[in-house]
């Protein structure tokens, strides 16, 4: 199935800003993150279809996944 992936800030480095990826059905977000070569600890915010999500959530066809690095205020 196809999902849209948006990478933000430092997660774009050496990868891309936005793109479509083919993943197997019932793939958790964690699997997508691994495939992108991003250590799980480097994902600070994870949003699927505009809602905050978790690494173990399962992806569905045509989902839009946005990944952000950890951020802090100050």
């Amino acid at each position, binding site marked *: 199935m196809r999902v849209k992936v948006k990478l933000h*800030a430092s997660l774009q*480095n050496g990868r891309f800003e936005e793109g479509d990826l083919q993943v197997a059905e019932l793939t958790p977000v964690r699997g997508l993150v691994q495939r992108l070569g991003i250590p799980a600890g480097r994902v*600070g915010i994870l949003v699927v279809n505009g809602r905050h999500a978790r690494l173990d959530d399962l992806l569905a066809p045509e989902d839009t996944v946005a990944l952000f690095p950890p*951020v802090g205020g*100050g």
Partner: protein
Amino acid sequence: MAAPAEGLDPAAVTFVRCTVDLGAGTARIERLRCRNLEDVLGGVGRAYQLLAERDIRAAYCPENPLVVSTGLLTGSAVMTGLRTYFSAYSPLKHSDRGLPAAMWAAGSDKFGARLKWTGIDEVVFEGRSPRPVYALFRAGPSGPQVQLLPAERLLGLDTHRKIMALHQEHPDAHFAVIGPGGEHYESVYMGAVALSTENQFKSGEDKCRFAGRGGMGSVMGYKNLIALAAAGPDQVPPATPEVLEVNKTLLKPKAGGSTRYQPVRQGGGGGTWANLEVMQAFRAAPENNFRPKAHQAVEGLFRRNVEKDLEVRSEACFRCGIRCHNNVFERTPEGPGRFIAKFDYEPLNLFGSNLGLHDGPQTAELVKLADNLGLDAISAATTLAYVLDYNERHPDAPLLNGATFGQFERIRDLLRRTGEGLLPEIGRGVKRLSRNLGETAYAMHVKGLELPAFLPETNPGYIFAVAGGHMSMQTQMLLAKEGKTTLEEWTGVITRLGLLQAGFDAIGLCKFTGVWINSEVIARAVQAATGLPMTTGQLEQAARRIYLRGLALEWKQGYTDAEYTLPDQVFQDPNPAVQLPNFVTREYVRDLKRRVWAAFAPELQELAPTFPPKESAC
């Protein structure tokens, strides 16, 4: 700091206080016994207890002390142990009754360490000098020595030039100075304190650090105290294997924290600049006075776009491995040229898109100007945004020079004249200005202190911050990071975690360690550097009491329940452009306050006899 032989009995720990009577020109140095864990941690933990003893009705009065303090780990070999704290009743933050609120501001690099190494943990400046002076602290053969020296020749110099002039005379010292802003304290209530840095001395560039919030530089200006100097050789204690282990932990991603502030090239998040991209993804990056427009112009300030015009270098405070500074330079064929400014999320956004400016070089020039003038970037920029907003709403009767969003030259003129003391309308902050004009709904402050660059509709935690919204209540990115909206979630974070932020403004470490004050690594740091067996539970207790004492001090200064709220615009006119849940209503705030006050009640009734404040219609 002399440690007890065993265990942590606060009464067995002592600290050295220097009390300087500026009116009489005398100083007294005494070793005092700690009364509690907050005294042991130091910083605002001690300073706020001293402020609580005073009955202060106006910030500019001789009885309002300025407390300059270090933390338990300031000057230690623990990484980031460089913090200096400035505490006083603030000319800027005030209750509706007109009473000044207690405030603190914090800054890094070596001034605090140098002060500590003279043998002084804390300085209390009493009274007011009859003439401009600076205070010089030095270790002497029989203990610390203090001198008050003439400072007339420093008047009128910007923060960097003051520091470099003092550096010529005292090459073995570090400095805390005010700029023109603090000198013009009568019309500038948002004066910052600039702290010298090693990098500044080596490069000759204006790379100060700042203790900006609450107008502590203006309090110095009122006291005719133009600068502080702490002289002497470096005395960083040897890093024992235990301290080295602590420092390694603080740098490791597993500690959960500092990686996000480290340079992108080292695999880090690139400092707080990265927040802009995150907030913009949710259309929550402030534009045009905290009113996002959902357009793409903000991206002009993204790092990758700023790097098209300017050079960015990752630099650090003295001996800090986190290297969170994103210093921007003009680009020349030979590489980085003139240093312009340090880009953090708050000044970058508040002097950029929040003023309708989306150009890196222009924004950098405004940040630099505010720093040179010694103005708190957050308060100055947020008040400027209000002026631009007012002028856009009143094109036929604008304020001052009529500037509106995006007009760089006019905005720069307003900022410059504010720092020169010529525009008290801006220099006294947005609460006073908006009340004078009778248009308070879009004045972006809470309890009289201007908001940093996080939208109020995304952070009801602002209501409970006691010394600035992102300094003393760690909730500013909770919605964007975790999507939390329920009363249970927000009450829990505010009353159990967010308030612990205050502990870092006692202990002497930087918040950019990225861990909580009650973390095991902080307890290890205390043990390794001082031998004090402080537990994580004790760290948490001390941090809670520091925060709660701050809250109690607000009520002492006349704050009522009605003042614990957000700007009215949040409730009256929610912004549909923001792509985060819209959950902060008047009813939500009312219910949140009930829950938070109830959670604090058992501890607060001892500290604040007037608790809880009488509930109003909000």
